[in-house]
């Protein structure tokens, strides 16, 4: 009787009812239908265009006509290790590493306070303070920093009033990181990178710290550990996945950015700018694609290492 009843309803219902019955009887079909659009999006539009770009890196440009030659070659990759191009890669990776490390050092105490001590209104203030810079335009922030760091900007002015301009002059006289003013030095680029990406580091660390049980820190103290030992052997290892997760953001965002070094810095190129110039300006799409492969390869290695450190447990 119970087997007959649904069959009766099927014949009585419209096409919609029949369809829903088919889907109810074949749950796998339902899942396939639901997954198809996002799978197509991810597979065709997202990964497809990415692979189309990467395929370009195995072509080369005809140096006479400037047109792309569609023949397999590794010569474009060979161009990457030319000194002038390798400089760009090295410069970007070192910058991304320094920015990530500094962000982590600055973020840790902020995140620790926000996770452990901030309560009620303070907590809201902390969240707002961290999130608010993300709401204003990225370009406005960078131009504001250009004015802050300029030779005749507010920072120099403040240091002059404090009779401390010799500190800045001594700092700017340093090779590599120094320059004529902070706004045209590598140090300036670094400061703005750290400022802009800091929230991406604070939030994952805070999430990780909130999951560290206070009892463990107390137990560590009860067993005679100094605060420094507790930090090294208990707190840091437990929060490390959050630090690594944050550094994935800061590292990859620095690797790909092409706006900040264009406005603040020495005019020396970063990977993002090299991709932009070779693709958009010089029309050398194969070399741009080869450059685009570099951050992908670096991030692949980085994510593999991060996974081993358990970074994704904190996401």
């Amino acid at each position, binding site marked *: 009787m119970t087997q007959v009843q649904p069959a009766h309803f099927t014949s009585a219902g419209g096409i919609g009812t029949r369809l829903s019955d088919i889907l109810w009887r074949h749950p796998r079909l339902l899942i396939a239908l639901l997954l198809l659009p996002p799978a197509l999006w991810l597979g065709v539009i997202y990964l497809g265009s990415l692979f189309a770009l990467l395929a370009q890196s195995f072509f080369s*440009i005809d140096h006479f006509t400037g047109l792309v030659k569609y023949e397999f070659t590794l010569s474009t990759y060979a161009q990457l290790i030319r000194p002038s191009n390798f400089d760009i890669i090295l410069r970007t990776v070192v910058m991304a590493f320094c920015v990530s490390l500094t962000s982590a050092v600055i973020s840790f105490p902020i995140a620790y306070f926000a996770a452990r001590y901030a309560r009620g209104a303070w907590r809201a203030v902390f969240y707002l303070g961290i999130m608010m810079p993300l709401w204003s335009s990225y370009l406005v922030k960078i131009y504001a920093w250009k004015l802050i760091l*300029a030779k*005749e900007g507010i920072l120099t002015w403040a240091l002059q009033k404090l009779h401390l301009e010799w500190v800045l002059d001594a700092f700017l006289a340093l090779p590599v990181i120094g320059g*004529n*003013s902070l706004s045209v030095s590598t140090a300036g680029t670094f400061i703005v990178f750290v400022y802009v990406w800091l929230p991406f580091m604070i939030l994952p660390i805070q999430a990780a710290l909130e999951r560290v049980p206070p009892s463990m820190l107390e137990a560590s103290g009860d067993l005679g550990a100094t605060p420094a030992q507790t930090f090294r052997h208990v707190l840091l290892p437990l929060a490390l996945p959050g630090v690594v997760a944050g550094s994935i953001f800061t590292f990859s965002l620095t690797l790909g950015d092409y706006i900040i070094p264009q406005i603040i810095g020495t*005019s020396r190129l970063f990977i993002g700018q090299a991709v932009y110039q070779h693709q*958009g*300006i010089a*029309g050398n799409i194969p070399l741009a694609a080869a450059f685009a492969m570099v951050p992908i390869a670096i991030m692949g290695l980085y994510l593999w290492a991060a996974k081993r450190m358990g970074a994704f447990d904190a996401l």
Partner: protein
Amino acid sequence: MKPHFKTVLLATVLAALAPNPGLTQISEIGEGEGALSIVAWAGYVERGETDPKFDWVTSFEEKTGCMVSVKTANTSDEMVALMNQGGFDLVTASGDASLRMIAGKRVQPINVDLIPSWSKVDDRLKNAPWHTVDGVHYGVPYMWGPNVLMYNTKAFDTAPQSWNVVFEEMTLADGQSNEGRVQAYDGPIHIADAANYLMYHQPELGIEDPYELNEDQYQAALDLLRAQRKLVSRYWHDAFIQIDDFKNEGMVASGSWPFQVNLLKADGVPVDSVIPQEGATGWADTTMLHAEAEHPNCAYKWMEHTLSSNLQSDLSVWFGAVPSVPAACSDGSGMQTQQGCDANGMQDFDKIRFWRTPVADCDSQDECVPYYRWVSDYIAVIGGR
């Protein structure tokens, strides 16, 4: 049926084979399409928003109903890239971009008979090689001018006589070194400025044309630029960033456009400009029509508007450039005067070496260094190599 079919086929084949350069040109201007999109240099297409006195778009929109939208580009290479992507009707291309676009078939020939004011165009520009190929016109001259040497009048007692202030380390009149206080253009075409400088100071190199360099001449120019890298803190490619750098970064000298000079002067910054003894590179821009323009009628109406309205006169004041229609200097169509035109370089046409794309197959020598190498080598020079 059969013979008829063959005739049609034959006619089709013949039509396809016959050389017909006029095929893409339109023969009459129809109704406007209601819209027009232009790729232009910053400050080139003004509608009174930056300064209410400078407006040459509103009258055009009222007259034709073609609503103008502008995409600004900062370098010639960016213009070529935008036109390659498509979706634009017109571009104000300089000579280092125009021939690339003609060769790449991104722009179409212009029927000058449809532009009544063509007769008013400066005779020196009508058949200029950067927009006329084999006698076919690929655009209407827009505006031209020199790449001047801008300098801070507090750092210089008198106008600098030579470009050496941006190429060689020296102590300026204010007692400080020029190191860290000069800028250079952030585009590979700046190599031509170095070549132009060497052409005057090292005649033994035998440079005849700064855009046609053999390997030795090219390496000499790169060496000069490597020395310049030590003086330059930041290269400029955005006019407004350069303006900011002259205000807040203590910059005192740089190759520049009269556009920045005029804006800085208007802001009370003590700057002035000069064309030094070596002469200067310069730009001559042409309004060119995209091969697949969606709004050709509006585009033709705009090309006529550029020559016949207040545009030539007022734009030449605004941009510090020289009109392509000489009458605009004195006919009162805008704010420009004959003295103003002369100050902007009207009589210096022969001193200016206009931007062109360097090609391997050049006229003055057997083989020249082509543009793609200018691009990669200039990146290397800025990177400190």
